[in-house]
């Protein structure tokens, strides 16, 4: 059976009324959190983990994927109307989108963002469906050492070990790996770093950690800034429809954005944002109207918005086929799979094709839902933007603690939430990235298992790890990704220092 048949079967699964309902809840929540600044898809999925614990596995995963896609759509709305990106992958959209809105062209900007997201999401999801079986075939020959090498590569790239923050990225990663050691060792059953506390035998709860980092740390940081900018909402004036020339200028950027965003999301290069910046730069270079850039060029909205949705689908390629998360959101989704006792990877395609293909097919459906949610209903989302900050953050913390209490209603768990929240605040304060600590906690135990399995095959010979060409190449890339930026940085240091700017508020 080819990918096409599987996809059709998947569509049958995904079209069941209950699955449609899960998808609808997912995309609606996703759009909402995309619109709201200060809360993103990673946090939302983390909050929902305990709530979905008793629900259907396929349905919950469809909902999580819907949240991920929806976040990418919703983020553009705030960027365009408020000049405040709801999501980091929509930062670049604000550049041209808000300028368009100020000129009274907010409607076409929102439309090109939504339609571009739709087209990119559709093409990228199909690419995912047709690529996945191939990668699964390749991955079937992967042994523990190849998986270990893949995880090392993911560790290096997620730690933002590029440029200025290599030290802080790696520190964040190693703290995550240290926390991952807490609890019962999965291979020998010995308790590690549990300090006589029985709750710690199960290890650090991913939900608690992620919620503390993303919600509590963030709320503390924003509260401490004490700067209350009065966001100026630019009303959508005029027609929301795109003119013929808007269409003519948008379709190529959509396609280019898709083909830039998808591979970047799929590579362990860390996140959707890179694709959006590249797409913007490409559009500016190729545009017939480069002078319009900076003053509201529609290409600068169309390309990056397509790129961020294509990236989201691209991220699912390594997640589903290899079990390898390349972003914080993907890492939390991996935790979602694990909560249901599922391990994404080649085996899951063989043992549970209904679930995997149902999930992929539901993404196609989610895309249609999102187009409807984001074009005709845009007015509703704009209202969300008027929620005042005190209520917004009070609500975020209420739901954040609800998730933790729901997972384990103990004082100790809430204490950990507070402790990690303060740690997350400190990390933000000192310029440490948050994603590596979360990825380290989630991926650490898996990396350890693969390493120990590989070494027991080789009877303790570490050279075995690089004797397979695939593993050697992966580890080589990881080493290069770590070392090259450090050398470049050391060389260009004088130049960098003069340009080192302060933190933003």
């Amino acid at each position, binding site marked *: 059976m080819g990918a096409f048949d599987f996809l059709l079967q998947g569509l049958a699964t995904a079209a069941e009324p209950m699955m449609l309902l899960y998808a609808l809840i997912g995309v609606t929540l996703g759009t909402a959190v995309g619109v709201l*600044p*200060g809360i993103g898809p990673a946090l939302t999925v983390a909050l929902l983990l305990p709530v979905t614990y008793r629900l259907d596995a396929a349905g919950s995963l469809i909902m999580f994927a819907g949240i991920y896609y929806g976040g990418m759509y919703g983020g553009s709305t705030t*960027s365009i109307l*408020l*000049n*405040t*990106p709801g999501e*980091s992958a929509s*930062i*670049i959209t*604000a*550049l041209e989108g*808000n300028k368009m809105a100020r000129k009274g062209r907010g409607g076409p900007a929102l439309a090109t963002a939504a339609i571009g997201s739709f087209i990119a999401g559709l093409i990228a999801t199909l690419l995912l469906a047709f690529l996945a079986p191939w990668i699964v075939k390749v991955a079937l020959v992967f042994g523990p050492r190849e998986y270990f090498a893949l995880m090392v590569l993911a560790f290096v790239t997620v730690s*933002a070990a*590029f*440029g*200025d*923050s290599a030290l*802080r*990225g790696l520190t964040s990663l190693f703290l995550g790996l240290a926390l991952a050691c807490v609890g019962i060792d999965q291979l020998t059953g010995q308790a590690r770093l549990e300090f006589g506390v029985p709750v710690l035998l199960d290890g650090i709860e991913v939900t608690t950690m992620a919620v503390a980092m993303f919600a509590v740390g963030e709320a503390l940081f*924003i509260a401490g*800034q004490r700067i209350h*900018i009065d*966001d100026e909402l630019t009303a959508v004036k005029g027609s929301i429809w795109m003119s013929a020339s808007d269409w003519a200028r948008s379709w190529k950027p959509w396609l280019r954005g898709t083909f830039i965003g998808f591979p970047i999301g799929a590579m362990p*290069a*860390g*996140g959707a*944002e*890179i694709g959006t*910046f*590249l797409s*913007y*730069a*490409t559009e*500016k*270079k190729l545009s017939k109207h480069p002078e319009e*850039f*900076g003053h509201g060029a529609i290409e600068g909205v169309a390309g990056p918005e397509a790129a961020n949705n294509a990236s989201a689908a691209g991220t699912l390629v390594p997640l589903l086929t290899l079990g390898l998360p390349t972003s914080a959101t993907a890492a939390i989704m991996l935790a979602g799979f694990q909560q249901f006792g599922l391990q994404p990877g080649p085996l899951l395609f063989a043992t549970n094709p209904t679930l995997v293909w149902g999930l992929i097919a539901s993404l196609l459906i989610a895309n249609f839902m999102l187009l409807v949610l984001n074009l005709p209903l845009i007015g509703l989302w704009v209202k969300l933007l008027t929620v005042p900050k005190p209520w917004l953050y009070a609500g975020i913390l209420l739901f954040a603690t609800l998730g933790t209490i729901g997972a384990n209603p103990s004082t100790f768990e809430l204490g950990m939430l507070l402790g990690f929240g303060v740690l997350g605040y400190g990390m*933000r304060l000192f*310029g*440490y*990235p*948050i*994603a590596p600590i979360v990825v380290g906690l989630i991926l650490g135990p898996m990396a350890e298992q693969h390493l120990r399995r590989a070494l027991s095959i080789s009877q303790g010979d570490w050279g075995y790890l690089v004797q397979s060409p695939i593993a050697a190449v992966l580890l080589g890339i990881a080493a290069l990704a770590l070392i090259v930026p450090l050398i470049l940085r050391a060389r260009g240091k004088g*130049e*960098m220092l003069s*340009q*080192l*700017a*302060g*933190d*933003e*508020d």
Partner: protein
Amino acid sequence: MTIIRYIRSALRMFGAAVSVVSDLRVNHLPSERELNRLGIKKADFQAIHLN
């Protein structure tokens, strides 16, 4: 030659994008040089409300 130049410019753009993104992840303002490589004016970038 032109192909090599094209690849070089693409790689430089990629490097700039990676560096800008890793700055943003830790709440740093990206450097003007990297932003320029991506065709972004620093003043425009600073006008965005990031939080």
